């Protein structure tokens, strides 16, 4: 589904809700995740939903962080739609990905553990 938040015009500072760092994209007002518009380094201070957080690990473009605290079993909402369920507590600002989210349909196949073992090379 098309993001509710309009990308009709080029993204401007004022388009981004002041509650969030401009490097983060809120696709729908109901979402509990934010998407990285660019690569963000570990340790960077980010405003997330009005609160300052410090990024615990580098965040790649297109990856997600929690907009607010998420409890185990809670639906992850992106584009205003559920994209899976949390398998652990996810504090605001933490990376939301295969280590703490599962599909409500078919399990996700990934090689991220292998990749980490190989020294992080894609």
């Amino acid at each position, binding site marked *: *589904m*098309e*993001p509710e938040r309009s*990308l*009709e*015009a*080029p*993204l*401007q500072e004022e388009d981004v809700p002041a509650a969030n760092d401009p490097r983060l*994209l809120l*696709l729908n007002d109901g979402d509990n995740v934010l*998407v*990285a*518009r*660019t*690569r963000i380094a570990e340790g960077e201070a980010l405003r997330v939903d009005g609160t300052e957080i410090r990024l615990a690990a580098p965040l*790649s*473009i*297109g*990856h*997600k962080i929690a907009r607010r605290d998420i409890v185990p079993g809670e639906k*992850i909402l*992106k*584009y205003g*739609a*559920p*994209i*899976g369920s949390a398998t652990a507590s996810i504090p605001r600002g933490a990376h*939301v*990905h*295969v280590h703490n*989210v*599962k*599909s*409500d*349909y*078919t*399990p*996700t*196949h*990934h*090689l*991220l553990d292998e*990749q980490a073992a190989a020294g992080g090379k*894609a």
Partner: protein
Amino acid sequence: MKTHGIGTMRGYLRSDGRKGIRNVVAVGYLVECAHHVAREIAIPFREHDVHVIGFPGCYPNDYADRMMERLCTHPNVGAVLLVSLGCESFNKYALERAVRATGRPVKTIVIQAAGGTRKSIDEGRAFIAEQRALLDAAPTVPMDVSELVIGTVCGGSDGTSGITGNPAAGRAFDQFVEEGAACIFEETGELIGCEHIMAARAATPELGVELEASVAKAARYYATLGYGSFAAGNADGGLSTIEEKSMGAYAKSGASPITGLIKPGDIPPRGGLYLLDVVPDGEVRFGFPNINDNAEIAELIACGSHAVLFVTGRGSVVGSAISPVVKICANPETYRRMEDDMDVDAGRILEGKAGLAEVGLEIHDLVVSLGAGARTKSEQLGHQEFILTYKSFEPIGPACLPAA
């Protein structure tokens, strides 16, 4: 609206009234055992629109028969050479008859009858040289945007695909549908989780039921196989689940009402937006519905697609035999790394350098330019990937194509 050169599009008129934006000689091998000979025949003509397609199996399959027939009689194809080993089960007689019935020049070389590899290659190359000369001199006629059929696929998706490239392709689709063209989106396995919102866009409630059923079938099929339509690279790129990938993939369909549901080889009867149901019917049989992106591209082309929009985030490099593939790069980092392979930089939406409407129009105009002599990056690089494997389908039901 920017001028997009409608008047400059020209096509090759075929006997069924459709027009092609390319005039390709298709060399079709009818079993893997004939693949090498087919490839050798085509090699001297690799820069001259001679494309190899084919079916590797030795056992008969109705789906493969239909796919080969649709591809050999595609409007972008001007002449056909079939290459048979001689003992395979593929019905080469029926395929040759079907191609001949369209008025296209067609020849079948049977390697066992021709006297082996070398003689078959010589005979095949002589036929192609002759056909190529005729096709190069063939006249063109004016072609309107409303006569286009355009497919869309995404591959190597990441967390940017659903935000930039896919919705931009959706904008291009909206414009094409408005102009009367037929647009086809696909991969029901990547619409899992979107079935209800999609059904709400159906032209009739009965079609909505069919759309939902096609996604339920895909969910069942993939659940049996134990994997979703999800590759390891999707997770590298930030996609966590099939539902998340689906929501992004669904954006390719744009916002037009959905006119119909078709299956591989069905040609849209008129303009509008169509869902291509690519997941086989019945019990899980021949393995994964589509073993890679090119299997999907071949199906979109078999439905008559003159061109295919391919949105990628991780960076796919593929093109296709028969129809040009337009590569839309969703991820700005990937675009910078792989610019030579990409036709459109949709990642600039994420960087705040362009809006969705602007990139959508760019995609639209680029497709139109393909009918006025322009070539895509993958065409220029010689990409002509093709794959066709075993599948089985039932014909579509009466609710799938509601009357206009």
